[in-house]
Each structure stands twice: as C-alpha cells, then as structure tokens.
C-alpha cells in the first residue's frame, strides 16, 4: 500500500507529461500514438533497444544518486554536470599518463581518479556553504561553467592529438578499458556500448541505500536534511554533514566518467555530457529521492533518449527534442506537487495519510 502511494505520484507526473507532449505533437501535425509507439518500441527491442536504453540510463543513475544524496542532506546539487566533467577528464588523464601500466594497477587508479576528482569538485560548494554560508545552488552553477572551461583548456592545450580538429584527448591505455556487456552476455553484440559501468551503477544504488539507511553516517546525513536543529540537538555537526554530503554527491556524479571514458570512448571527448547532471535532478525527483526510484526513472529517461532518436528519424515533424520537452514537463509537474494535491487530491489518491 505504501509502495503504491509512492509510485502513484511519479506515475501521474509522467502520464501528465506524456499528455502535454502528445498535445504538442498533435499541434505540429503528427500522430502522438504513432510517435509514442515508435518511442517505446525502439527503446525496448532486443538487443539494441534495451542495450542502448540501459547504456543511456547508466550516467543518469549516477547523477540521480548524486542529486539524491545531496537532497537527503537538504542540499540541491545542480553541479553534477561540472563534477562529472572534471571526473571524466581526471580519469582520462590517469589513463593517458600511465598508458603502459598493467590493468591491475591502472584500472583502480582510473576509478579512484574519477571518484576523487568528482568528490573534490563537489566538496568546494560544500565547504563554501559550511564556512561562508553561500548558497550551494549558485556556487554549483558557477562551478559547472568553470569545470567545463578548465577541462576544455587542458584538452585543447595539453592532451589533444596534434592536428586533430576534434576536441578530444589521445586514447587511454588498454589496461584502463572496462569490458562491454557483450563479453558476458551470449547473443548480446559487443558493438553496443553498454559496459560494466552499468553494473557499477547498480552496485552504487545498493551502496547508497545501505549508506543512507543502514549506517550511522547515513543517519546523521538524513537527520541533518530532515531537521537540522534537531540533528544539532542530537550531537550532529551540521557543517560537517554538508561537506560530507556534497563530497559523496560529487563522487557519484564523477562515476559518469567511468562509463564515458573507460567503458565507451576510451578517451576524454569535450562536451560529451548531454546535460546528464541536470537530468539527474529530474531522475532523483521523479524517483522520490530513493535509490530504487532513481534506478527506475533513470531507465525511463534512458528509454526516452534511445527512443527519441528513432522518433526523430521516422516521423515527419517530431525531433528528438521531444525528450527534453518531456523531461522539463515531468520536473515541472513533480516540483509543483501541490498542483495534483489540489484537484486530484479530492479523489484521495495522493492525500498524505496521517496514520
């Protein structure tokens, strides 16, 4: 019953977004049913549809978890975008610099680089908030732009193949590659870039759950987010929790770099992120800031990205921008929860039960 209530609201938001999207499709002269059929069909076909859907979902699981952890501490991390760029570059840098190192050493180093770089970039707004009280939202936005400029500088001036017109670094060492799923799944072609980072993402969902709800540290973090004055009363340092939460959040966002660099392109490619950091906000919100919810909504958004490409190609007027539109509308609906509690609340679907 509790699960049903938790699922009900996100479901309504998604359906409402699809209805708004459908109306827009009608306006521009296409058939929404056809478009949606195409979208869902292409996203769930085996093996390509599902493979790509999960591949696109992977970075969103990481950023969704990143937003979730910060949110549980009462913070809004809009900086996942910057954190993942810094981390992706850091992991590529390790892979390039120690190109001949054996996999046993290089791979863990690359992982660590992504996690530490993301965490450090996330810690900055945390420290700024704890120390100076400056708002993490503004600082994370600013740090996004700084991160993008910084890694683009290093790519352009220091790690680009000379003469290459594309803004990307040279290739990382073979020891830093992580295997694609095709290696393990019979009948699953290796050309699909779905890789072990997806398994890492699943593991992170479990770890985040265990951390937040099963350890004393998670308890302190959530207590701070739930009621900082009561947390203080319980002997918890709010400042410390803010820094911890932002660091973990940054680390999770940083793992996007593992999927992108170690599992997909094997190099750092400037501007690779399709707003994964911002979509992470939608993923976390729609997922009710719970790891299971994040996993489900990341897969949903993965489907949209995958299906969007096909809708773009096989309808007359609809472009893949439909995905952004649906995303935006979903967040708006989720944010304005009161909208549904008003008119729909009367049916008792969404009323918060008291006992």
């Amino acid at each position: 019953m509790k699960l049903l209530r938790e699922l009900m609201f996100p479901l309504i938001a998604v359906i409402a977004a699809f209805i708004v999207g459908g109306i827009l499709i009608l306006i521009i002269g296409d058939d929404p049913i056809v478009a949606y059929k195409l979208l869902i069909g292409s996203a769930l076909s085996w093996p390509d549809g599902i493979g790509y859907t999960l591949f696109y979902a992977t970075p969103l699981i990481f950023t969704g978890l990143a937003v979730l952890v910060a949110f549980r501490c009462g913070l809004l991390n809009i900086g996942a975008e910057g954190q993942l760029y810094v981390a992706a570059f850091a992991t590529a840098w390790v892979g390039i610099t120690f190109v001949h190192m054996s996999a046993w050493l290089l791979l863990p180093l690359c992982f660590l680089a992504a996690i530490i770089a993301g965490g450090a970039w996330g810690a900055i707004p945390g420290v700024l908030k704890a120390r100076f009280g400056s708002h993490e939202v503004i600082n994370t936005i600013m740090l996004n732009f700084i991160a993008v400029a910084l890694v683009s500088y290093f790519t352009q001036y220091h790690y680009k193949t000379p003469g290459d017109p594309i803004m990307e670094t040279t290739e990382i060492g073979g020891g830093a590659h992580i295997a694609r799923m095709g290696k393990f799944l019979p009948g699953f072609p290796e050309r699909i870039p779905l890789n072990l980072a997806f398994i890492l993402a699943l593991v992170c969902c479990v770890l985040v759950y265990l951390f937040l709800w099963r350890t004393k540290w998670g308890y302190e973090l959530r207590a701070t987010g739930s009621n900082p004055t009561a947390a203080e009363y319980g002997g918890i340092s709010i400042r410390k929790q803010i820094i911890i939460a932002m660091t973990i959040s940054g680390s999770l966002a940083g793992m996007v770099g593992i999927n992108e660099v170690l599992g997909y392109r094997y190099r750092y490619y400037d501007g690779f992120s399709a707003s994964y950091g911002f979509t992470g906000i939608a993923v976390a919100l729609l997922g009710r800031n719970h790891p299971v919810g994040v996993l489900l909504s990341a897969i949903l958004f993965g489907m949209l990205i995958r299906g969007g490409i096909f809708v773009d190609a096989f309808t007359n007027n609809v472009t893949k921008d439909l995905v952004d539109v649906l995303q935006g509308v979903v967040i708006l609906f989720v944010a304005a929860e009161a909208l549904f509690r008003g008119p729909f609340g009367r049916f008792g679907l969404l009323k918060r039960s008291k006992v």
Partner: protein
Amino acid sequence: MLELRNITKRFGDVLANDNVNIVVKPGTIHAIVGENGAGKSTAMRIAYGFYKADSGEIIVDGQARQINSPHDAIALGIGMVHQHFMLVSTMTVAENIVLGAEPGSEIALDLHKATTDIQGLSEEFKLAVNPHAVIEHLSVGQQQRVELLKALYRHARVLILDEPTAVLTPQEVDEFFAILRGMRQQGKTVVIITHKLSEVLAISDEVTVMRDGRVVGQVATKDTNAAELARMMVGREVLLRVEKPDADVGTAELSVKNLSVSTSNGTKRVNDVSFEVRKGEILGIAGVEGNGQTELIEALAGLILAAHLTGAIRLEGRDITRVNARARRELGIAHIPEDRHRRGLLLDFSLAENSILGVHYRKPVVSTAGVFLDDQAIRKRAAQIIEDFDVRPTNQELPARALSGGNQQKLIIGREFELHPKLLLVSQPTRGVDIGAIEFIHRKLVALRDAGCAVLLVSAELEEVTALADRLLIIHEGRIVGDVDPKVATIEQIGLLMAGGH
C-alpha cells in the same frame, strides 16, 4: 469601537481561541493580560486580519465587518504593532511608514511629502525619529516608534500593541506610557497585550484577562488589584497534585557560576546566573517565557556556541563550558527540549529512528563493526520506550509526525530517560499534552529524581513547577530574582516575582 464576539480559532489540534468576547470602548486604553499561550495575540491578530477566525464576528463602530486581510483592517482604522516588528530592515523609516499607503502617484513616489507628513505626526504624538534613517541602524525603542507612526500614518483609530514593553528598558517604558496617554488624549483607542501586571495597573482603563484560550474576566482597572489579576491569570480548574516523598538530596551534580549568554548582536539573554542542582532533587525555574530560560537550557545542553558564553558550567566538578553537545550527552546529560518539533524530533523519521537520536552512533544501536545500525537493537530499544512510556500507536514504523503531541512528548522523554542520565534538563515537559499524559510524565520525573538523578525543570506552568520542584528559582530578564521553597510560597508571590513586580 472594537468588539470581538464569540471568536473561535483552532490551529490543528490546538484550540487557540475558545468563544472569545472582548469589548474595547472608544478613547480608552484597554489591556489584555494572560500567560503565554493564553490566546491574547491570536485574538488580536484575528482582529487585524492576519488570521481568519473559524467562527465569530468582529464588530467595528457597531457594525459587523469582514476582515480578511490587514488591508481590510487598515481601511477600518485598525492598526497593529506586532511583538516581532513588521519592518523591512534594509529600508528607511519613511519608506517603511508609507509602504502600502504611498503618497504621490503610481509612477512617482512622493518621498518629500512622506517626510513632511511623518515629521508632522512625529511632533503631534511626540514620537521623535529620523525619517531618513535605515531601520537596521535603529534601536528597538526607535523601531517601535516607527511601528506606531506606521499605524498613525494610516489613520488608525484603534492601535493594537502586542507586548510593546517587552523590548524596552524601565525608563523607556515610562516614556512610552506617556506617549500612549497622549494618544488617548487625542482620541485614539489603544489595546495593549501584556503579561506584566504592574503595567496593566499603571496604564490601562480596562482589563480583559485570558487563560487557555478563553476570556476569564473583563474589569475596570480601578476596581481590581495585582493579586486578583494574578489569580485570574494562573488559576486552573483542575488542581494538579503530585504525590512525592521528600527529596533525598546528595552532592551537587551541576554547578553554574556567573553564567551569561549573549546573542550575536551582543544583548544578554542570561545575565550572571549562578546555581547548583544536586543529586536527587528537582530544581524548578519559574518565569514568564522569553526571560532567558531557553538560552539557559540550551547553554547547559551545549547547543550554544562557547563564544557566546561567559562564566562556568561544571558537571560533578568538571568544567564542561567548552564541551560540545555530543560529549555532554556522553557525560550523562539528557535533555528534553521545550520545542519538540524544532529540536526534539525528526518528524519524517520513524519512531524507531527517533528513538536513537543522540545515541545513533554508538553501542548498542550500532553493531560491532562500528558503522552499521543494528536493526534489532534499535527495534528493541524503541519497543522498550514505547512500552515503558505508553506511546500510542505502538507501530515503530510510523513517522513521528503521525503521533499526537502528547505521544510525541512521551517518545522524547522515553528516549532521554533511556540514557539513564545523571542530569536531566527538561523544558516545558507537558506543553500541549493531554491531562492523562501530564500526570504520567510528572510521575516519571519524580521517579527519576528518586533514583538519584539531578533534574533541572523549566516550565511556564506555574502550577507544574511548584508541584514538582523541591526548590524553585524565579527568572526575570535573564536574572535569578527569587529563590523560594515551593511548599511555602504562594502562587501570588511567585506570580508577582515572575511578572517583575516585588
């Protein structure tokens, strides 16, 4: 002039105003007295359109009126000066006064006219203030004058003043009363909300006494006296009796020497306080709320930055003034906070999770690895508290939000008792708690005392502190102004000390 007729107002489960009737006659100064939480401010905020009454009528100049917002009240000639001033601190005096009733046209604010108008009013009512000064640079006394001018500028004929003297020094109070008398002379009507009896006698023509959301009497000031008013204010229909044996007092557990607590802007909320709490006794602190009790308890619990403290706090002789909250708990201090929603509970967390706040990081609720919460141990602990303290409903998975106030309070008390403290700091233990639970909580507190724990009890309920305490200190404006034996002292005596009288 202004009349409240059968006004009833509920906030959630709390009945703030229960069928309130108040008649304010034109050209008088009318005092409304009562303890904190008696419903005085609520009634007047309804008259000003800040809250909407659930039922009842407001009559202005003999006619029933709909007052839905302050805008409506202002139009009817009602002005209000709130206890927490409603001023925009970054704007100037003139800007604040004319806000919402600006002179000039829509496209040109005539600040020059505003200034001259304000100067005129200043002179007429002897409220000297510089119209160009920025609010945050003014003293509270000056800010209060701005608030008065704001109401007068809107041609208020009735001025409602909520605890206007709380922020003033005795000299300023005299000056302020002179201003109020001047206003009465000019034909204005004044309603003054206060809990200080000396002031009621000094300034008002009529008094309405409120208690527990109800009006208990309306009398002409000249026909009454302080003792009678005090009895009306603090009297209870149900007399609470606490059966307790004589205290078996041991050595000093907590000793406080010359403790002062200042806020970040430098005002002293606790001023040079010294006392001891001994093992096996309940030391009560009585006082009107807002006289430094909150800060005193929070300072003892380690919730106020050491930089804001002077003096010394010792637990069994050991100086703990600079020890943080967690370490103080480990030394054996438990704390039942006055505001359970702000401090005491994580409302969205389950009862089980709430039952470990403060011990969540150590054994037995953390397993041997030192990291993972031990679900079974937590359940056991929560079940124990729920059973011992009769928390209902008993489902540990419910969020704390789902409990009634009384059950939330029992949960907190149970949690803190489970620490087996040497010293218990307890504030307003029975606020918003039903009668049955009150008695239960009282018995538990006495039992803890009998087990040898030192208990420091703060309560705004005079009956409660006198019934429970073995010794009673009275606090007023951050100072200890009385030390009485609750078995001997009368409610009137204590009440007068609390109200700052002698």
